[in-house]
């Protein structure tokens, strides 16, 4: 199932990376604890990949590793984005290279208004969607633009977090549980948005507990368990596979 | 008795500020003390051993024992000073403690030495209390005091500024400041001066502008700064900044008086001290034999003239050693007895006497003035008057000195 990229040519990955985003033998640690345990997977340009698994499986850690956050520390392996070596970058460089992460607790910046939160994202190049366009997509944010970001309701914050990512010209959008805390109508909205984003050619990795919804959206799925990959294949395959569903997704 | 020297050497403890604002003052004291030790041990040029009227010292240590010393840091805090004095007494076996640059420390360490049974030679301490209400049988002061400053300054002030002046006092808000203010107010009022106001300034003040400004409108024509060290440097700087010295009030030129001067303060205040009057315990420009000899020894060794605190400590170390020789023992009670009512000359201050009743030393007091045109970094002050000792002498039970209640107690020789 898991197509191992062919790295036999050594480290000349810039040309040989088999996919748009390649994670190869990545290992990450929080201090002493070994969390992401030697995982490899590929995401192709323009596709939506669902990254699934139980609580504590290591999904967040994987996304954070790709976005080159300080924790967890990637101690081994390589990450390539569009022929650029992410594993050699710091988080702000990764962001400039085209990574956009919507973190699980949204991380709206306290002390800044909605608008400032977006403006902040548009300081470093490359810039993506304009404010107007974002407010069009999320009218709610437009209404609240002068309010302090952290006082928004949970759902509004989620919108802001996504808007903030889109306001940058990103190549890969990493979404950590984007539906969490959102009203069903909004989830529908966001799902629609994600499809729009996909049409724009943005590659997406989505982590979601609502596995069914995520799988309906995704082209491909990777299932993690205790830090390792237990499945890598087409999204439909998961829905079809009774065993997988029961064992790892409880659906 | 405490720390009786049994070997071939005797240890003295030099407890001076080595950190904090008075570190330079302390450093000067330490240099002088080391010089004294050298001279006692017969090294160097012998310094004031050549001029000292008592000839008991032979340059072979004290009572034949080589003089060694330990040093400590008072940090100009009573607690720290006591800790370091204790360590010298308890750990290093010091039989005498010398040094310091503030009255608080002096009183605190004096009390400690009394309890521990060693001799304390007080170093720089100017408050009346040290040999006033806080006098102790084991403690001796070579430095002059606030009363003496007042008594010495008064005639000069009268001569230079007349008997009709309005004085405004700025006083550091702690013991020494108060006693100095009290003394100066008493002696100037005796001249016929009027005291317009006395204002207490916090010790921690750095900027005195808000204390200086009111002087402008107070009708005062004289400002008395009962400040020491950094306080004095800043208050004087600020006063000059506000143009006080250029003013004419009540038809008289405005004057500033700094009752207690030191060389370091003068250096710190720079050009601002020009013409400002004050008093000192000693100045290297004194031309008596002892002084000339001391300045030569000190200057040749360290390349600068000694400060008055340096001279104080130097003289005290020699005096202590001499008293031991004359008493034939290091026992503090014997030494104290030898020092009491001891009269001598040749250590730089001219004729000097250590009074038995309160262990205060009596000698001439200098009135000095900030030099108008100093030719080098060291002659920032010029001597205006050498006030004879008689003129500054007072009764041991003077009210400013604890009155009849103040007692020395009995000498403590310790364990």
């Amino acid at each position, binding site marked *: 199932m898991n197509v191992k990229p062919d790295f036999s040519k050594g480290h000349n990955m810039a040309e040989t990376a088999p996919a748009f985003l390649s994670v190869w033998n990545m290992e990450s640690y929080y201090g002493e604890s070994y969390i992401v345990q030697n995982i490899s997977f590929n995401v192709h340009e323009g596709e939506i990949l669902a990254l699934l698994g139980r609580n504590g499986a290591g999904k967040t850690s994987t996304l954070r590793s790709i976005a080159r956050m300080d924790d967890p520390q990637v101690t081994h392996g390589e990450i390539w984005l569009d022929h650029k070596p992410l594993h050699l970058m710091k988080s702000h460089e990764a962001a400039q290279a085209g990574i956009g992460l919507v973190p699980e607790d949204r991380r709206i910046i306290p002390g800044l208004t909605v608008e400032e939160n977006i403006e902040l994202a548009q300081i470093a190049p490359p810039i993506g969607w304009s404010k107007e366009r974002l407010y069009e997509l999320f009218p709610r944010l437009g209404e609240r633009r002068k309010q302090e970001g952290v006082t928004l309701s949970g759902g509004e914050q989620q919108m802001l977090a996504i808007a903030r990512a889109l306001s940058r010209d990103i190549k890969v959008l990493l979404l950590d549980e984007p539906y969490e805390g959102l009203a069903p109508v909004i989830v529908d909205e966001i799902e629609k948005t994600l499809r729009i984003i996909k049409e724009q050619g943005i590659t997406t990795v989505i982590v979601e507990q609502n596995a069914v919804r995520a799988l309906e959206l995704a082209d491909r799925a990777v299932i993690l368990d205790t830090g390792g990959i237990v499945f890598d294949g087409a999204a439909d395959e998961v829905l079809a596979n009774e065993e997988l569903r029961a064992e790892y997704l409880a659906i | 008795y405490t720390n009786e020297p049994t070997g071939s050497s005797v240890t003295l403890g030099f407890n001076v500020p080595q950190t904090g604002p008075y570190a*330079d003052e302390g450093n000067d004291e330490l240099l002088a003390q080391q010089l004294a030790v050298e001279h006692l041990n017969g090294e160097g040029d012998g310094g004031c051993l050549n001029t000292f009227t008592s000839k008991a010292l032979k340059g072979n240590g004290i009572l034949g024992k080589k003089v060694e010393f330990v040093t400590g840091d008072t940090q100009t805090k009573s607690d720290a000073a006591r800790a370091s004095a204790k360590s010298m007494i308890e750990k290093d076996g010091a039989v005498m403690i010398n040094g310091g640059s503030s009255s608080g420390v002096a009183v605190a360490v004096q009390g400690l030495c009394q309890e521990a049974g060693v001799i304390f030679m007080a170093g720089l301490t100017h408050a009346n209390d040290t040999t006033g209400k806080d006098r102790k049988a084991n403690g001796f002061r070579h430095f002059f005091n606030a009363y003496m400053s007042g008594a010495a300054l008064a005639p000069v002030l009268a001569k230079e500024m007349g008997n009709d002046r309005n004085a405004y006092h700025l006083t550091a808000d702690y013991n020494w400041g108060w006693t100095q203010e009290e003394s100066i107010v008493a002696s100037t009022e005796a001249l016929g001066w009027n005291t317009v106001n006395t*204002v207490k300034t916090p010790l921690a003040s750095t900027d005195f502008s808000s204390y200086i400004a009111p002087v402008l409108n107070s009708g005062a024509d004289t400002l008395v700064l009962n400040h020491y060290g950094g306080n004095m440097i800043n208050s004087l700087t600020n006063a000059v900044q*506000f143009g006080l010295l250029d003013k004419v009030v009540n038809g008289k030129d405005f004057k500033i008086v700094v009752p207690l001067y030191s060389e370091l303060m003068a250096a710190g205040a720079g050009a601002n001290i020009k013409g400002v009057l004050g008093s000192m315990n000693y100045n290297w420009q004194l031309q008596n034999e002892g002084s000339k000899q001391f300045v030569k020894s000190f200057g040749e060794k360290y390349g600068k003239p000694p400060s008055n605190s340096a001279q104080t400590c130097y003289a005290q170390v020699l005096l202590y050693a001499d008293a031991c020789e004359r008493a034939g023992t290091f026992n503090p009670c014997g030494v104290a007895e030898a020092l009491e009512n001891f009269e001598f000359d040749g250590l730089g201050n001219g004729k000097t006497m250590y009074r038995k009743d309160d262990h205060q030393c009596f000698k001439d007091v200098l009135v000095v003035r900030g030099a108008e045109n100093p030719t080098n970094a060291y002659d920032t002050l010029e001597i205006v008057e050498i006030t004879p000792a008689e003129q500054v002498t007072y009764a041991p039970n003077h009210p400013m000195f604890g009155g009849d209640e103040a007692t020395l107690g009995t000498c403590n020789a310790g364990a």
Partner: protein
Amino acid sequence: MDAFILQILNGLDKGSAYALIALGLTLIFGTLGVVNFAHGALFMIGAFCAVSLSKLLQLSYVTIDETQKDFLGNPLKVETPYVESWFGPEVGAAIIDWSVPLSILLAIPVMILVGLIMERGLIKHFYKREHADQILVTFGLAIVLQEIVKYYFGANPIQTPPPDALLGVSNLGAWFGFELPYPNWRIVYFCFSALVIAGVFAFLQFTTFGMVVRAGMADRETVGLLGIDIDKRFTIMFAIAACVAGLAGVMYAPINPPNYHMGMDFLVLSFVVVVVGGMGSLPGAVLAGFMLGILESFASTTWATTTLPGINQIIIYLVAIIVLLTRPRGLMGRKGVMEE
């Protein structure tokens, strides 16, 4: 009446010293979240830039003058500053005279350098550490800086006068027909502070820099995710703060002669100012600086000290307590900054 105005002026003057130090401190403390006990030392280093420059300018060569004698009776060594021999006695003397204002030129690069080294070499590693650790390390650093200065310059204050032209007093009341003499240099100091404060405000207000740094302080990680190299900005911010402290020090030197522990004397007070102003608020720090300066001035008047003995000793702390009890976050503090 004029006594009253005089005290207000004194208060403004004191206040501008407080405000300048507090401004730098609040940039580091309220914005970067680092409890910088070495900030006072930066102020002190600034002042010693002025001292050093004036000493440098007075570097002299020695000639022996047989006609005069020094204190030991040897021939006097006469020192002539090199600048005087290079530029002629008049220009040389003028340069020496203007050494304090000139040292601004020296202080800016020096302070920026000190700031950069300090941040890159030390503080950087402490952003994520507890405040307690920051206190210990910066306090250690402050001691080290102080002791180095003490080693070279001694413990005694060093008189650093302003240029002769700025010595003396001006009558500020002349236009209004009454006497209001005020020292020139203090007026200069006040104007200079106002300028620096305005400059810093403008920089933070009219550029996104301030917002980025505030955001970075609240959540470094997320700001990094948005492609911003927050470390670089923190470094710049630190250098600016160091520079502000240093300039405050340079200009303060003629007011009161600098000594090696002047930083510590101001340190506690400037923390009080920052906190009374409210954490994270620049205007707060400035406002609190001036407020405390003026209150302190009034508390030292004879009237105040006779009505309430000792009020001049405690006024600042008393006001701090009252403000903090009535306004939870100081005068203008923002919510959530350093409250845990």
